């Protein structure tokens, strides 16, 4: 199942709607990293609100995505991790080290605005 990638100002937003296969995840990562260059994006937001499982592959792929897009000039923030998922992840030692996280899309946007030091008008 393909994940739609939305472009909003300088940011790319990927909203995951349903559980993804490993292959879908890889495709998402590659698409985002490619589009960061294409649109000269400064930030990437991956919304995982719909996921109720995050396995080691998903966590690694998201971490790789964050690192790869940073090398190409964009900050990545993962938003919407569910409480149960978060705790299960830490118990498995999958803590997304070095990757920014935020409560939801709104927080993620606020984080990127702060991080990229760009004044943007909401509303």
């Amino acid at each position, binding site marked *: 199942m393909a994940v739609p990638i939305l472009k909003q100002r300088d940011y790319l937003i990927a909203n995951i709607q349903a559980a993804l296969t490993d292959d879908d995840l890889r495709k998402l990562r590659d698409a985002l990293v490619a589009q960061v260059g294409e649109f000269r994006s400064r930030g990437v937001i991956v919304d995982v609100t719909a996921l109720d499982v995050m396995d080691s592959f998903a966590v690694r792929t998201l971490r790789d995505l964050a690192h790869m897009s940073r090398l190409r000039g964009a900050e990545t923030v*993962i938003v919407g991790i569910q*409480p149960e998922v*978060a*705790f299960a*992840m*830490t118990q498995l030692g999958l*803590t*997304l080290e070095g990757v920014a*996280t935020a*409560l939801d899309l709104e927080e993620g946007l606020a984080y990127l605005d702060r991080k990229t030091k760009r004044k943007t008008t909401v509303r």
Partner: protein
Amino acid sequence: MADTRMSSTPVISPPARDESTTVLLRELVAHLRQSRTQLREEWARRITEAKLLTAMTPEEIFAEATAVYDNYLEALETGSIEALETYARNLSERIIPRGVETHEVVGIVLLLRDVLARSLFAKYQQDFHQLNRILDAYEPAANRIANTVAVGFVQERERVIRQQQEAIRELSTPVLPVRERLLVLPVIGIIDPQRARQLTEQLLRGIRINRAKVVVMDITGVPAMDATVANHLVQTVEASRLLGATVIVTGLSPEIAQTLVNIGVDLGKMNTVGDLQGGIEEAERLLGYKVIPITVEAPVATS
């Protein structure tokens, strides 16, 4: 749950009822019905003598005794303990809050069993063979009734205990909003693994509901923790970060500090401040607040 808890777990399988047993029981019950007034009084008297049900007045004991007696006979006659089960559960609900103990309930049912047995002895003392047959029919049924009532009482007590445990657990770790996006979580008392898990759940849920950015977890009231719980604490801090919130831990005792150092906590991940005041100040700083004292002399400063 209420309707399955007893019927789904038969403690004693129903005694085999052949034709003659049924006939005997019917005869037996007819006799006990006839002597109802006398036997019931005898029973109530023995309850008082044995100093059972001291939490209840004699009138109450007599009223309950009447109801139990009739239910008892019905259970003997029909062999169905369903009505008795319902009554026993209902009785337990009424008398447990008044402090009636398990031994009292078991005691009164056994007393009734004995009173009735005595009456049977008296009636059939001339015919030993017949008495034996009557007792063969009576005893399994009576034991089953006693068992049912006792088990019902204990189950009701356990239900009350579970309910209270739940209530204590819910009260034990309040998640308190202090300012917008700032939560305080005071933890008091020993944390066992079960409480730790529940604490984590409540904290993570609190973060989501209040959209918190910073949480101050104050563990001044926690005297000690073992490595398992300390590890759990570290995991909780990490899980909170995944939700986008920073956790500041305050009030670590020397013992807990030692435990954390012994398990080799990565201090880069743990944000700790000496006391709750310092923790809240740090949290305000992270959130961009600045607290300025208002004095009478100085004009109110604006930031």
